[in-house]
């Protein structure tokens, strides 16, 4: 198994996977708790339009994808405030807008359709050294953000109004978080692909929320789950010659199903033991 790491492209893929899996689930936990689970999906569709622009004008696609994601993040945050009662509307508006732009822009550049496939579904041979450096920059930025703003982000995520009263600059912090989410989505594309990038954010959070007690534990369990599934998925992808994005997401889904089933069995067992204990106690009292 270890011999596969002698290939440079796989070393790059694993390094990229570790970096993405280290940060995407953290973003995912906040997205889920802020009821913005579909935001990553939206930003990935907008990023795809950025990739299309990049290949059309002949520049490095990840940069144009990042720019598109940043613009998308600003729009999501602004529209979310404009449609406060229907905040998911902003997601729907941008998702359709992003995908429509991408499809139209791609049609102008028919020769690049093969390259687009790797952005749509992810590819372990698509990660270049430049991609790795950009990813490392984004991950470092995210790490700094959460290091400095861990406490205000917690307060903001729990309740925006109480956060504002306690002096948290809710609007600025919320926008900064959306921008970071956009950047992470854009740099995750080469590995998991546009269509599955949100799963890498949301599924580890969903798994972690089922098993963790406390906020810090939720974040750490999500990161560990993400890392395990990304590394496992990349290995399986290489060994079985299947797309990495889909493999990683299927692995995450499998873990989620196992967690849900095990939790259900445990809770059924616990309630059965509780009711048995009541019956036993009842009989003992009657006999006495």
């Amino acid at each position, binding site marked *: 198994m270890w011999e596969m790491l002698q290939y440079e492209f796989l070393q790059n893929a694993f390094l990229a996977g570790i970096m993405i899996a280290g940060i995407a689930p953290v973003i995912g936990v906040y997205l889920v708790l802020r009821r913005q689970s579909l935001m990553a999906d939206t930003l990935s569709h907008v990023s795809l339009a950025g990739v299309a622009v990049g290949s059309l004008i002949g520049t490095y696609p990840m940069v144009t994808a990042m720019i598109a994601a940043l613009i998308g993040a600003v729009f999501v945050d602004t529209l979310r405030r404009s449609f406060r009662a229907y905040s998911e509307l902003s997601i729907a508006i941008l998702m359709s807008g992003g995908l429509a732009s991408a499809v139209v822009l791609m049609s102008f550049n028919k020769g690049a359709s093969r390259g687009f496939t790797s952005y749509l579904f992810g590819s372990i041979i698509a990660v270049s050294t430049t991609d790795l450096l950009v990813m490392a920059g984004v991950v470092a930025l995210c790490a700094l953000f959460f290091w400095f703003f861990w406490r205000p982000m917690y307060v903001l995520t729990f309740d925006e109004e109480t956060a504002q009263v306690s002096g948290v600059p809710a609007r600025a912090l919320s926008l900064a978080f959306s921008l970071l989410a956009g950047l992470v989505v854009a740099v995750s594309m080469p590995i998991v692909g546009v269509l599955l990038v949100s799963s890498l954010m949301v599924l580890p959070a969903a798994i972690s*929320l089922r098993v963790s007690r406390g906020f810090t534990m939720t974040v750490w369990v999500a990161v560990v789950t993400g890392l395990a599934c990304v590394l496992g998925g990349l290995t399986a992808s290489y060994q079985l010659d299947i797309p990495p994005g889909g493999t990683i997401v299927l692995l995450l889904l499998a873990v989620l199903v196992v967690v849900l089933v095990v939790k259900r069995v445990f809770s059924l067992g616990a309630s059965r033991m509780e009711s048995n204990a009541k019956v036993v106690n009842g009989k003992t009292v009657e006999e006495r």
Partner: protein
Amino acid sequence: MQLAELRDVVFGYGQAPVLEQMNLQVGASEFIGLTGPNGSAKTTTLKLLLGLLSPQQGQVEFSSTGPQGKPLVVGYVPQNIASFNAGFPSTVSELVRSGLYTRKRWFGLLPSKEVDRVEKVLKQVGMWEHRKRKIGELSGGQKQRVCLARALVLEPDLLVLDEPTTGMDVEARTTFYDLLQHQVQHHGRTVLMVTHDLEETLPRLTRLLVLDKRIRFDGSPQQFQERMDLRARTATLPLYCCYDDEERDAALVAREGVL
């Protein structure tokens, strides 16, 4: 000493104002109940006072210091906060501790004196034994008590609560109001609370405000009781006439010819 003041405030969500020429002063060590019919802008008033909304006209002013001369600290428990984010993956003590995360405390270790307060307020609200439970596992009343503890942990000079006892049973409500009264009487805090539960809160309040687009009544519970005694005579008049001297008198004169 005035902690906060709304002066000639006008506010509306659309074209029609929901608050007209609102004047309100909040002093130290007061237990103020804010009541009024649905849609009378009670929550809006609190949000204007807290700076969550900006007035279209008029001014909102805060004292820079509290009664002890230290910077003014404000605590806030919004309406239904506990049910809004019930699935938040926090333990009770983690959530209460987060009440300490004001701008000055974003970085570094929290002073042990402040961390000790988490235990103190959890004991005050009767939730210490539940400190390791997830908030999603608590009942509605328990969640509200945790949210109150979170607001109290900063030792606020002004505590603003928006219908904090929604969903609580009678016993839990009584305990909750006793706790708020204790904060006013023994810690010198000011409590401003939106409530419809006048029967239980009135004996504890030091001041009652009745709101309907503007303040219709502002006085002590005793004065309010006197107004309520007139209710039989004013039963067919609009509700606010029970509280507003001028409008009540005008309505009575219009109907009965005499006061």
